């Protein structure tokens, strides 16, 4: 009896696999219906949201999206590139696991006549030279924005601490650079400490607690490089009754970040919209395949969100997300035409 059940199970399994396979469309479409291969470093919450944007834009263009995740593994991403080239997709979009590894594959894609678009994270020049376009955030500017708002709030004097992303990631490198650019212009502001908290709330909470014990009232402001770390820092401040008194800034514009801005605990955040960013990378890929002009560099200057304008963005992204998604293809076309890519 166990065996007949097992047989049925095996057959069911095979049937399911078969169905899944039959349901899939063959690749190799015509230019009017291009096939775009997307390989991303991982299904982070940002990328998962961005996938919806890419799919929406693909549907609007009659394109087919092939989506691969490399689960943070360099070699998996290389394999996925080889697969896309082998499948003869019409274009490839990459959110790279590591900035310096995909050189040979991007070159091979170019040689096979497949344009490559880089998105979300920057890659080394050796890789970029064979790519068609970069669609992604200006993280230096985001870091500068954070620091500028802090400087204004503390009257350009005092001491600050910085919480960084994981060392070596392009987001961390560029945001740190932006923050230091502004600190260099403010000689009366002392950088008390700078330490990674790896984009995480819990780590930022602990590091901020340690900083508060060590430096106490010397700290005039905290500069975390993203919203999650800002929320961790605010939590540490709250326990000391300092939330809203010591300025904290952030970047990304996640839901909790915008709420903290609205509540007055977070001074400013810079909106990085995954739907818009990966959706635009998709549109650039389609445009390139269909022979329309594409920007070599579509830099997202992230909109600055403060208490005065947070309502607009919160409403757009988190109260009526369906409407935003519906209007996304049109917004992307408008932004591409205007050259102001991050407007929303």
């Amino acid at each position, binding site marked *: 009896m166990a065996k007949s059940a097992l047989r049925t199970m095996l057959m069911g399994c095979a049937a399911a*696999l078969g169905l899944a396979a039959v349901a899939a469309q063959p690749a190799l479409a015509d230019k009017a219906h291009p096939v775009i291969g997307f390989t991303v470093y991982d299904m982070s919450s940002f990328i998962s949201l961005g996938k919806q944007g890419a799919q929406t834009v693909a549907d609007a263009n009659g394109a087919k999206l092939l989506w691969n995740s490399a689960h943070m593994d360099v070699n*998996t991403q290389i394999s996925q590139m080889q697969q896309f080239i082998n499948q003869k997709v019409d274009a490839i979009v990459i959110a790279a696991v590591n900035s310096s*590894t995909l050189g040979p594959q991007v070159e091979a894609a170019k040689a096979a006549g497949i344009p490559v678009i880089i998105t979300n994270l920057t890659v080394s020049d050796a890789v970029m030279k064979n790519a068609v376009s970069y669609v992604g955030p200006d993280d230096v500017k985001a870091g500068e924005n954070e620091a500028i708002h802090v400087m204004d709030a503390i009257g350009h004097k005092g001491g600050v601490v910085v919480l960084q992303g994981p060392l070596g990631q392009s987001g961390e490198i560029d945001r740190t650079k932006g923050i230091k650019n502004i600190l260099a212009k403010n000689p009366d502001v002392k950088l008390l400490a700078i330490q990674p908290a790896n984009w995480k709330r819990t780590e930022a909470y602990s590091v901020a607690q340690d900083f508060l014990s060590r430096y106490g009232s010397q700290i005039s402001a905290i500069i975390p490089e993203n919203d999650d770390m800002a929320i961790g820092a605010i939590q540490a401040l709250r326990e000391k009754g300092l939330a809203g008194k010591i300025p904290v800034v952030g970047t990304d514009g996640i839901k909790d970040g915008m709420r903290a801005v609205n509540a007055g605990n977070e001074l400013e955040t810079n909106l990085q919209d995954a739907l818009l960013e990966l959706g635009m990378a998709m549109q650039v890929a389609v445009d390139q395949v269909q022979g329309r002009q594409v920007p070599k560099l579509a830099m997202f200057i992230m909109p600055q969100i403060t208490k005065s304008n947070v309502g607009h963005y919160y409403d757009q992204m988190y109260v009526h997300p369906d409407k935003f998604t519906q209007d996304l293809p049109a917004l992307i076309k408008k932004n591409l035409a205007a050259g102001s890519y991050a407007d929303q």
Partner: protein
Amino acid sequence: MSQSTDTVAFAPPPRLDARQIGRFALRYSLVIILALFLVTLAVSNRSFLTVSNMNVILIQVAANALLATGATFVILTGGIDLSVGSIVGLAGVSAALFAQNDGALTCAEAVGLGVLSGAAIGAFNGLLVAFAKVPPFVATLGNMTVASGLAFVFSDGQPISGLSDEFLALSGNIGGVSIPVVVMIVAVVISWVVLARTRFGMHIYAVGGNAHAARVAGVGLRGTRFAVYTISGVLAGIAGVLLAARATAGIANTGTGYELNAIAAAVIGGISLMGGRGSLIGTIFGFLIIGVLDNGLNIINVSPFYQLIVKGLIIIGAVFVDSITHRTED
């Protein structure tokens, strides 16, 4: 159910037939699953069953094949090796450090040092398990962290790039066949000969099957255990060097989680985690199934979330089928 009971009562021979077919289907369920999957993929997608895609799949499985072969040696003795993923990163970084354009060493020496770093961690595992009697899970878990730490120290957390063309050529072709694939085939064939045709191979099965009986029969438990962990380390070292050439850089966290894929391949292939039972041929099917799944599920565009579920269920299913077959044979 009631129908088959009727058939049993009045006509025994057809039931025996069905039973034989059932047993055959169970024993070869792995091959059947692989074949079914290949056929459905080939029918539904033109780009799957092509020479170039088959080549891509082989290149993709090469590293896991080396690790799974090492895992087979270790698991057959009833042990486990969790450190191989970290060894991949360490060996890649070690080789890359000495394979840079302006390096003083030759390419062969750099490769040798990379493999040697893997052998060293493997031998350390072996010492701990065989001589210090540290449980394999704990010893290799500890060394997983140690090896990873060493890789970060050596590389300072940065990708080690700017490698010589000679080193990068390791990811190229030799006589039209990819070098990692050649290395994989050579390593697997040698390992099969060792396991199936030599006295040392017999000892490995004996240690895993019944260590007490093996010792009474004069098998050196310590030497055998020490050797399998060292072999696993060497194979992981080779994989690490090849992957560094492929990625054009030695990166410390390359290989994170690879140990689980390797163990999964061995287990799917019917290597018993209790030790002493299974064949490297099974492991070969194991890593091929994982490779074809990775490639095929991507080609038919299955969402990454569902891919995780499918792969997990296949592992459970394979082990379940294996345990059923052996229960009926006992």
